[in-house]
């Protein structure tokens, strides 16, 4: 096992290198470049060429890549072409933090609500509550974000003023009771995005848990437990639940792999300064250095999380042998 881990980690730098080169090339594949966008209506080719030189966009792709690589290895990921005066790191990191905060909270709620709901549905299998829960969850998660947000925004923010219509103000805000007592509450800006992000999520998790739990409860050792005369609840808690958690672990791993990615639609429609909206804007304005830095960070998390998930899976299900060849 250790050898396997070391081997996987060893190719991480190589993988990142390949990803960076590929992204570098692909980014320049599209028509236009940041100079075109920044210069807008200015057309003088001499001027544009001067700007290109000044910002290091001249020369062949390999030359440009070497320049970038040299700086990147020293920790300098360049400057944004579009938002002048700000380094890529200062723009990207805070936005990733915002998206990551939202994602962590969402993951927590998705599993904290989804797992019990799934178990509940499995418990009540055969009676009306099971298909009811499942159908409702399915229905809620079938509506795309773009369709569900405007009505919810209108209802909660515009009509009833329960939540602000958009924006971001950190995770905690202070609520004053009678102007005297201050209590920290979750910031109201969180309610809408979390609502939209968690509902489809815990629906999926609930269904997963339900199916797994039903599966497991048909296994031999569970029948044995029942035959021994244990109560259903004991059977559920001590036998079904632990085994049903296996795919959940995998699912958590998958979710964490995307923790630094932002949901573009949610962020844009709700005015949240996250990495999802920012990445797309950077592509639109061909802000190459930003695209590259974002991609590398995401790739890093993704690869590491995949490794962890594979390890967890192998640990839990010993029938799976990693890296082994055919037996014969």
């Amino acid at each position, binding site marked *: 096992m250790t050898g396997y881990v070391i081997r996987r980690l060893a190719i991480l730098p190589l993988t990142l290198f390949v990803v960076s080169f590929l992204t570098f090339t692909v980014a320049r594949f599209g028509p236009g470049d940041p100079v075109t966008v920044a210069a807008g209506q200015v057309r003088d080719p001499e001027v544009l060429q001067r700007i290109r030189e000044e910002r290091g966009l001249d020369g062949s792709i390999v030359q440009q890549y070497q320049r970038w690589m040299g700086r990147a290895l020293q920790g300098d990921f360049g400057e944004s072409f579009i938002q002048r005066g700000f380094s890529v790191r200062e723009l990207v990191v805070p936005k990733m933090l915002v998206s990551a905060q939202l994602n962590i909270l969402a993951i927590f709620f998705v599993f904290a609500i989804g797992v019990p709901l799934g178990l509940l549905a499995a418990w009540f299998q055969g009676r009306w509550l099971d298909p009811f829960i499942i159908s409702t969850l399915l229905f809620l998660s079938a509506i795309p974000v773009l369709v569900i947000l405007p*009505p919810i925004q209108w209802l909660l923010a515009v009509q009833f003023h329960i939540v602000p219509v958009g924006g971001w103000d950190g995770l905690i805000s202070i609520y004053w009771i009678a102007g005297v007592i201050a209590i920290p509450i979750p910031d109201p800006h969180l309610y809408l995005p979390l609502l939209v992000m968690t509902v489809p999520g815990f629906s999926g998790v609930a269904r997963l848990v339900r199916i*797994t739990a039903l599966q497991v409860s048909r296994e031999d050792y569970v029948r044995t437990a029942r035959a021994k005369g244990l109560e259903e609840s004991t059977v559920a808690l001590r036998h079904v639940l632990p085994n049903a958690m296996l795919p959940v672990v995998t699912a958590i791993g998958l979710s964490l792999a995307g923790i630094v990615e932002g949901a573009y639609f949610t962020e844009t429609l709700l005015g949240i300064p996250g990495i999802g909206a920012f990445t797309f804007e950077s592509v639109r304005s061909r802000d190459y250095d930003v695209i590259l830095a974002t991609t590398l960070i995401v790739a890093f998390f*993704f690869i590491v999380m995949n490794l962890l998930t594979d390890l967890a899976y192998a640990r839990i299900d010993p029938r799976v042998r990693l890296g082994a060849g055919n037996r014969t």
Partner: protein
Amino acid sequence: MTAAAPAAPASEAPSIPAKGAVAHFWERLRKKKLAMLSLIVITTIYAGGILAPWIAPYPYSEQRIENALQGPSRQHLLGTDRLGRDMLSRSLYSARTTLVVSVAVLVSGSLVIGNGLGLIAGYRGGWVDAAIMRVGEVLSSLPGLPMLVLVNAALGPRVAEWGGWLDRATGIGLFKDFSSYLTVFMVLSLFFWVGTARYVRSLVLQLREREFILAAQALGASTPRILVYHLLPNIAFIVVLQVSATLGSVAGTEVALTWFGVGVQPPTPSFGAMIFEGSGARTFQSQPHLLLVPGLFVSSLLFAFALLGDAINDIIRDR
């Protein structure tokens, strides 16, 4: 994104099906009322799309600016949009666009690549497995969205030209949209087959230790034979599930793609375009039908496919 849970857990896979499995399968499916309802919904919407040119009450681009933004009425069953175009007709043609996208997805080979590579990786193991998985990892670490936008910007015009030529040559006005979606999905599938592959691979990893495989190997069956005759049938139903899931996600994908500027151009309607016109909390406040009509269609499709997928899943589990 958060909580990407696979549709079915990667635990027990079914054993070899008996002959007449398809008929048996259909029998079971018919008994599930929800699944039948879903099938009816899906068929109705798709049929609407196919028959749109014949059953739509108005042409989708006909504008009567004086009639703009009306709610449902006798002349316009689903109301009119900002330019006075009939929402019902536009919806029917949007269903057509969704059909075109669905075909493009199926043809683009994403299913073939993902399932095929997953099969090979899971069964062969060793360096083949490692190579496939690592390459897949690299490819899927690439930023999909930016790439999509860039590839579309770069190749889009060229492809659109060919498509337009085909349109004019054959008189069927679908090739242009079809070819631009095909390009998009081919790019997507080339880079993002890893998800499917991993899933299939994990299934295969368990299956290959099962008795019937060991028996076949003991009897001296060659690898391709094992892959095709023994593994594939067991995977087949999972593949069916994936096809259903993929088709189901098409509607949602089309909406997202349209928002990113990839997709049909106006005045060809699509659900994505209609949703775009109706989005925004304040727009919803004044003209809710602009969002509700396409939203209802898309949600129904997604919901129906999800129910169908669940039903198929249940049938597979219960054998």
